[in-house]
């Protein structure tokens, strides 16, 4: 009995030097796989998807799981990035890099302007307002002649990058996203974000500048979502309003984060891997995929609210990629 209580109270934070070495080794190994092209094209395709979903899901998790701003409108930045890349590469014949930079720039700009309005709303009002804004943009692009209205635009990148270089870019975006989120959470800002998630009023009272924190998180999320999405849409080769601004993007991100574990950095990684393989299986049942994803998400929320990684951490008493800086035991 005594032993069990001791074990229950102890939480091991895995973040010391060995952990760092393991992480760097894994990342290097992944880069090596990309560079040497030992993986088949098919495997590369899966890896690209997983990397990009991780990046986008980490950003959604940063908004929802760590800051408490559940956004249902991240597809706004996905669409904007897709169109920016299309305009830059197909119309202006710029390189992919410049197209991505343009997408990120446009997204940051839009998120800055929108923040002024959206931050007037809190909680659920904010969530639904983000969705409304994304819908408005979809309608706008549907009627905008310059971007091809309903039929959208093709994205033609010349010269078209080889698949392994796309894989390297995706991996880089993914690693940057994880590192940025991790470092952000370990600073004073991260503590402020968590405080805001738990109680905005109290956080504000102890001196957290709520507006500035929210703005920072939104801009970071917009930028990385745009970066990941532009690669994603370049791979698809076409962007049109119903695809770029589709709510299914957010459905996927919510699935990944909720199933993997909201409020953990490891969660989106696990969730993305599951999602990409599940997607492959679901492709055999056209029409059912969103239904099944929705059912799994609801069941997870009801019966496994912490997600896979969150539940494992709780059961096995460890924290991975945690904002906590030392292991500790909970005192009664």
């Amino acid at each position, binding site marked *: 009995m005594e032993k069990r209580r001791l074990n229950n109270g102890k939480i091991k934070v895995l973040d010391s030097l060995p952990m760092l070495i393991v992480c760097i080794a894994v990342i290097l190994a992944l880069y090596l796989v990309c560079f040497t092209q030992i993986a088949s094209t098919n495997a590369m395709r899966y890896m690209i998807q997983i990397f990009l979903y991780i990046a986008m899901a980490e950003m959604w998790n940063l908004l929802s799981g760590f800051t408490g701003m559940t956004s249902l409108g991240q597809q706004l930045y996905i669409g904007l990035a897709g169109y920016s890349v299309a305009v830059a590469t197909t119309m202006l014949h710029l390189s992919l890099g410049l197209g991505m930079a343009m997408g990120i720039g446009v997204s940051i700009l839009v998120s800055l302007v929108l923040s002024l*309005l959206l931050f007037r709303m809190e909680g659920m009002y904010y969530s639904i307002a983000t969705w409304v804004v994304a819908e408005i943009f979809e309608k706008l692009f549907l009627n905008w002649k310059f971007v091809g209205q309903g039929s959208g635009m093709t994205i033609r990148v010349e010269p078209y990058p080889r698949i392994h270089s796309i894989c390297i870019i995706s991996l880089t975006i993914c690693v940057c996203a994880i590192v940025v989120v991790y470092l952000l959470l370990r600073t004073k800002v991260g503590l402020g974000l968590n405080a805001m998630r738990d109680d905005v009023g109290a956080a504000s009272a102890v001196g957290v500048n709520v507006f500035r924190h929210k703005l920072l998180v939104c801009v970071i999320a917009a930028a990385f979502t745009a970066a990941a999405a532009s690669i994603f849409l370049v791979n698809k080769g076409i962007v049109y309003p119903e695809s770029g601004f589709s*709510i299914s993007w957010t459905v996927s991100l919510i699935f990944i984060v*909720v199933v993997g574990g909201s409020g953990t950095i490891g969660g989106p990684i696990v969730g993305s891997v599951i999602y990409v393989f599940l997607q492959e299986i679901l492709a055999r049942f056209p029409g059912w995929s969103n239904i099944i994803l929705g059912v799994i998400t*609801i069941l997870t929320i009801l019966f496994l609210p912490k997600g896979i990684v969150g539940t494992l951490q709780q059961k096995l008493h460890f924290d991975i990629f945690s904002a906590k800086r030392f292991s500790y035991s909970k005192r009664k």
Partner: protein
Amino acid sequence: MYVAQVIINGIMLGNVYALLGVGMSMILGIVKLTNLAHGEFIVLGAYLSTVLAPLLGIHPILTLLITVPLMFLLGYLLQYLLIGRAMKKGNEPALLVTFGLSVILQDGMLMFFLADSQHISLPNGMGTIQLGSLEISTLHLMLFAISLVTMAALTVFLKYTYTGKAIRATADDADVAALSGVNIGRIYAIAMGVALASAAVAGLCVGMKWTYDPSAGSSYLLIAFVVVVIGGMGSIPGTLVAGILFGLAQVIGGASYGLPISYVLLLIVLIVRPKGLFGK
């Protein structure tokens, strides 16, 4: 005279908008939950009426006798078995559950009814009534009447029945209501049932006025949201006024400027009165 015609058209249209928003407004005000599936429930109501009217050989409006209790039951069960449980885990899980429901419903209807747009056709053709130089279509007049009757019924229900009083008490302070012997879980379930019943009525009106398809839910949610934010959540008169304002904006702006004007209206209300015109 032209102005009078525009105003009448705007009010007629606005009433339908108010009807779209009233269920969502109730849920926001009472259960303190954003029901992201409200648009899909409206579409579901429209489909039920579309299917039932020819099947039973009755006037579309009479299908309400079946769809309203059916949707009430659906709402009651969903809240009792699903959403209520998620609400115990916090606001965000509940929101995500309604979001999941909306996705499931939308794709489910897409598989079941296919993507073709539908319309509820009325058995005897609809004419117009001439009032001096004003023209009012009987369809609009009928929608206007349905909407007003629904609003009045909701107001009477909330104001004078015992359950209605319990609902209002819960909306004001759930803890104190629980202390006075109100079964909160049951009240929430009834509120969700009433909201879905109003969605059934809204669905019928939407189906008679416009065409719809399984993916139309998000645009109804959009309208409902705008109406709720302008009117203030939980307020039926607020919803009505906001709906009419929104309808007027649409009619005055026409096809090309209607939506931008409405969104500017929304933004102004958000900046000046974030809680809505009639919000507490």
